[in-house]
């Protein structure tokens, strides 16, 4: 059985597919496989042993592994198959309705951090300020509204500052893997296909943990993944790596081969001509905000430019790594869910999103965004934006 898998095909499959690396770790999966991920990870050692046997030719793939999933496989046929030269896949064909799939979304978030709103606003205000002919009774409500939006943005910045200043007080411990799973399960759209690579040992108590504003981080990651989902090509893949030390990485694009091979893109000649290939690039701003709030590093790899037009085509991939550590000494752990600031920030963000629609994919980039992207893609093949954890 030979599988040629891509995100679009995976998504169409009614059966569950979990793609494994040659070391048995989960590298991709489709929606139907979500309920089986945990069980698959719990049986990683046995699956790895089987993979080794297949590699040396002792066992011929596909091989039934339903016996490894006794508790949950009563209504399913489960096989280990080869999906490529160095990858394997677990196929789950349910005979009846399987375990519950991803819950339908209860709410919908727009961008939570206001970067694109701010640029739209600044453009609008600049237009109003530059042309006195536009300033009249008709434009007065418009001006008032833009000022009002600016106020909301400033207020939201204040909330972000509060998050940062209180990070030691409103802290708790949570499994990053659980958190990321929850965020993904709550996403209303999935144009990209997300995979979770735990890179953890088999001991469950060594799972990565985060100390900090978990609720706020959930919201931020959700905004990030939504941005990727809306702007990404249909075959875009997102990999989230949860590390042993509790950090996690988010990668987009062809992450299996892209890192370290890409060259930097040249500076565009004129800002106004530059078009971003996907709105996912703009999510860079969200990553920067996450790093500003939580510390860590943001590494960006520029996409190779088309030499004919000399414009950068955006960012090929980025890796966000958040460091974690023990909470500061002397701080009691307070349940973050009771903290009002993240919830208040969400409401501000939702109001802003309501007032100003998002820029369409492929829209012209603001000058600030372009400068940021240009700086990143020209300073080095990779650029690290780092900020010490507060």
């Amino acid at each position: 059985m030979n599988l040629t898998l891509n995100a679009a095909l995976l998504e169409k499959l009614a059966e569950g597919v979990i793609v494994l690396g040659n070391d048995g770790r989960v590298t991709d999966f489709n929606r139907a496989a979500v309920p089986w991920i945990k069980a698959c990870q719990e049986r990683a050692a046995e699956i790895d042993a089987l993979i080794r046997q297949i590699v040396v030719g002792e066992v011929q793939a596909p091989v039934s592994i339903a016996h490894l999933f006794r508790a949950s496989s009563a209504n399913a046929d489960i096989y280990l198959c080869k999906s490529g030269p160095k990858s394997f896949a677990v196929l789950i064909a349910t005979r009846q309705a399987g375990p519950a799939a991803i819950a339908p979304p209860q709410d919908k978030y727009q961008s939570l951090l206001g970067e694109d709103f701010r640029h739209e606003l600044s453009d609008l205000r600049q237009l109003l300020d530059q042309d006195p002919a536009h300033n009249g009774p008709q434009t007065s409500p418009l001006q008032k509204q833009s000022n009002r939006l600016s106020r909301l943005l400033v207020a939201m910045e204040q909330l972000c500052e509060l998050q940062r200043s209180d990070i030691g007080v409103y802290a708790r411990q949570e499994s990053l893997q659980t958190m990321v799973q929850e965020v993904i399960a709550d996403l209303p759209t999935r144009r990209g296909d997300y995979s979770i690579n735990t890179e953890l040992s088999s001991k469950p108590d060594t799972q990565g943990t985060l100390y900090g504003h978990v609720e706020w981080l959930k919201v931020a990651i959700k905004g990030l993944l939504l941005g990727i989902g809306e702007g990404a090509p249909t075959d875009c893949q997102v990999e989230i790596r949860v590390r042993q030390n509790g950090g996690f990485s988010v990668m987009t694009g062809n992450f299996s081969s892209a890192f370290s091979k890409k060259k930097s893109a040249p500076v565009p000649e004129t800002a106004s001509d530059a078009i971003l290939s996907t709105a996912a690039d703009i999510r860079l701003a969200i990553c920067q905000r996450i790093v500003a709030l939580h510390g860590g590093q943001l590494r960006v790899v520029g996409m190779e430019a088309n030499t004919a037009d000399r414009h950068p085509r955006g960012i090929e991939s980025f890796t966000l790594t958040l460091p974690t550590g023990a909470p500061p000494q002397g701080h009691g752990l307070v349940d973050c869910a009771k903290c009002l600031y993240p919830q208040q920030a969400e409401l501000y963000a939702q109001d802003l999103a309501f007032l100003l629609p998002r820029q369409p994919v492929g829209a012209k980039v603001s000058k600030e965004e372009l400068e940021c992207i240009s700086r990143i893609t020209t300073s080095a093949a990779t650029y690290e934006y780092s900020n010490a954890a507060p």
Partner: protein
Amino acid sequence: MKKVLVVDDQAEMRRLLSITLGNDYEMIEASNGEDAIAMAQLHKPDAILLDVMMYGEFDGLQVLSRIRKSTLGQQPLIIMVTALGQAAQSNKARELGADAYFIKPFSPLKIIHWLSQKLG
């Protein structure tokens, strides 16, 4: 410009509301019930955003009651802003003369729209 008095013992919430509304109204702040009553008499605000749970001699409901019983001339609009969502608190605030009751976290647009409708 119409005046709005923000009463909250949390400086961050006062700042947040002042920033949110500061473009359309002249904002005055008080950090406790005693100051709120004094500033209401002194500045005669058009509206008061009043936190229910406050440290000090008077909580928000007591401030509301005292302002409604006072002879300020034209009574201000009073909006209670609170983390308490219980119906009993809301009913009590209404009985004491509150014009609106917003539960934290609140939508800033709702407050803006409510005030602009009532104050113009």
